[in-house]
């Protein structure tokens, strides 16, 4: 029996790693097994990294160890951010992932240049273009989410044609390099154009479309890693990249369906233009408003309450007050659940993480399909910082820009209460007929302090009997 060569042993650990990655994602399917999934993912990654350090091609360690320490030094604080900052952290990690994939592709190119075979050149070119545009695109997304950059869409006339021309330019440079590998000076130009395209891809996209954009960037980052696997003939990169790319793709599809929009519409649709035409018809109609005392009285008389959180709850940092409200109502024997729309917040699953952080049991967090059947039997639907995802016009008014978007059927509850700063329209600038229904009470104020007042009222009321 022949012994394995060191290279074969390393390849064997990569196979183990690939199996570990698949199990990690499989076990992530439910919260019960998810921790096991993370653990197997960690073990798989650690084995692969340690084995690679023993690769005979690696003949100097000092700088690699320093780079690993720097990476860990950046990674740990980025892993410890607050839950409200998770969307921008995620965008930043897409940027880092795409950056490393692009840099490795660039390094491979310069090792081989100018004698790069045509097919390899096409692979490297495509890989570097996707990596570069994902890098800058993710940085812009992170900037918008951190509110360093304006969240509203920044658009100008003819933007889509201009963007597509830029992308076409990057591809044209790549094709030229395939045909004329000796034009090595075109390679940095190709990178530069791809970097510019990444900026142009994300700048026109508004804050509320971030869940889709983050998912798409996730997908791109994955596919750039998979392409790098093609370039380096590394199957573990192909597997990890394909899994990451597939994950981003599945999430993008979920997000697009939840908004009843297509990829092209999110990327090139210019939701901004639709907003402008929709805001014209705002009329002053009477609404009923209520005080915290009245809201508390209605809640304490209810048997079942569904709370619908949105991005406004995250902005107001109201999740811990919401937990107090949940505790008080539950103690009184009232059934409290949460109805969560897939695009609530700034990334997929954002609301669930915030509410879980506030110690709300996850079996009370129900997604749209699970909760919608329950609204007709619900006494009170309490909406905190959500707007468009509760707009019944999406069901009925064919002229509405959000017509066809699946919504939470809060209007089927017996009483609807909406905590909102003012009557100002939501992100899309679309009037919400929900607010003018007879059963709807508007609770005007900051989400955190309003929920706090209700909680005070309920706990005070308890002591008076």
């Amino acid at each position, binding site marked *: 029996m022949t012994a394995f060569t060191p290279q074969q042993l390393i390849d064997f650990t990569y196979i183990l790693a690939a199996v570990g990655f698949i199990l990690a994602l499989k076990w992530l399917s439910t919260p019960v097994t998810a921790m096991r999934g993370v653990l197997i993912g960690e073990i798989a990654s650690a084995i692969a990294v340690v084995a690679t350090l023993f690769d005979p091609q690696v003949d100097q360690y000092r700088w690699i160890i320093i780079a690993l320490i720097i990476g860990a030094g950046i990674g740990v604080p980025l892993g410890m951010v607050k839950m409200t900052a998770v969307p921008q952290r995620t965008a930043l990690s897409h940027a880092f992932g795409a950056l*490393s994939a692009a840099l490795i592709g660039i390094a491979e190119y310069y090792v081989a240049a100018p004698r790069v075979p045509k097919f390899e050149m096409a692979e490297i070119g495509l890989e570097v273009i996707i990596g570069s545009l994902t890098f800058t695109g993710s940085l812009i997304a992170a900037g918008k989410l951190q509110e360093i950059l304006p969240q509203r869409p920044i658009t100008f006339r003819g933007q889509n044609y201009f963007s597509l021309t830029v992308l076409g330019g990057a591809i044209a440079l790549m094709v030229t390099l395939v045909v004329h590998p000796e034009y090595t000076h075109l390679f940095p130009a190709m990178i530069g154009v791809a970097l510019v395209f990444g900026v142009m891809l994300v700048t026109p996209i508004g804050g509320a479309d971030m869940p889709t954009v983050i998912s798409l960037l996730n997908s791109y980052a994955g596919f750039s890693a998979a392409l790098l696997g093609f370039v380096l003939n590394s199957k573990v990169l192909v597997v990890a990249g394909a899994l990451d790319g*597939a994950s981003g793709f599945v999430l993008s599809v979920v997000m697009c369906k939840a908004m009843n929009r297509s990829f092209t519409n999110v990327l090139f649709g210019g939701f901004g233009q639709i907003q402008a035409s929709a805001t014209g018809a705002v009329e002053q109609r009477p609404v009923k408003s209520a005080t915290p005392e009245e809201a508390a009285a209605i809640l304490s008389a209810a048997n079942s309450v569904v709370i619908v959180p949105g991005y406004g709850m995250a902005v107001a940092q109201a999740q811990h007050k919401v937990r107090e409200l949940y505790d008080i109502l539950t103690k009184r024997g009232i059934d409290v659940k949460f109805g969560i729309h897939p695009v609530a917040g700034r990334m997929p699953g954002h609301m669930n993480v915030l509410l879980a952080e506030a110690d709300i049991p996850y079996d009370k967090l129900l997604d749209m399909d699970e909760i919608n059947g329950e609204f007709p039997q619900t006494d009170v639907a309490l909406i905190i910082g959500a707007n468009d995802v509760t707009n019944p016009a999406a069901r009925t008014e064919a002229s509405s820009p959000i017509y066809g978007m699946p919504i939470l059927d809060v209007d089927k509850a017996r009483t609807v209460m909406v905590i909102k700063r003012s009557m100002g329209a939501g992100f899309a600038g679309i009037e919400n007929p929900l607010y003018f229904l007879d059963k709807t009470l508007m609770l005007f104020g900051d989400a955190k302090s309003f929920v706090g007042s209700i909680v005070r009222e309920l706990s005070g009321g308890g002591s008076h009997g």
Partner: protein
Amino acid sequence: MPADFFSSLFVFILAAFLGVEVIKRVSPLLHTPLMSLTNALDAIVVVAAIIIAGRHESRLSTILGLVAVAASFSNMVGGFVITDRMLHMFKTGKAKKP
């Protein structure tokens, strides 16, 4: 066209199909941890970065490789740390301490 391309394509297509099937089963509850976990797994590109940096074929490729090592390893560490933290927060009503 290099022969490697076909074996890579083969692996890619199988992994992508498997990925879609597995990820469709992930509860929407866990979509945020899903994204941070796949980010951490994707950071396996660090192994390619280590090879590029360790071979030091040229000064440029070594420097690019080292930056890639730091960038991808930060994703690996940060991604696992935050996924772990998030999943610890998901508790059922019964498991919750009084």
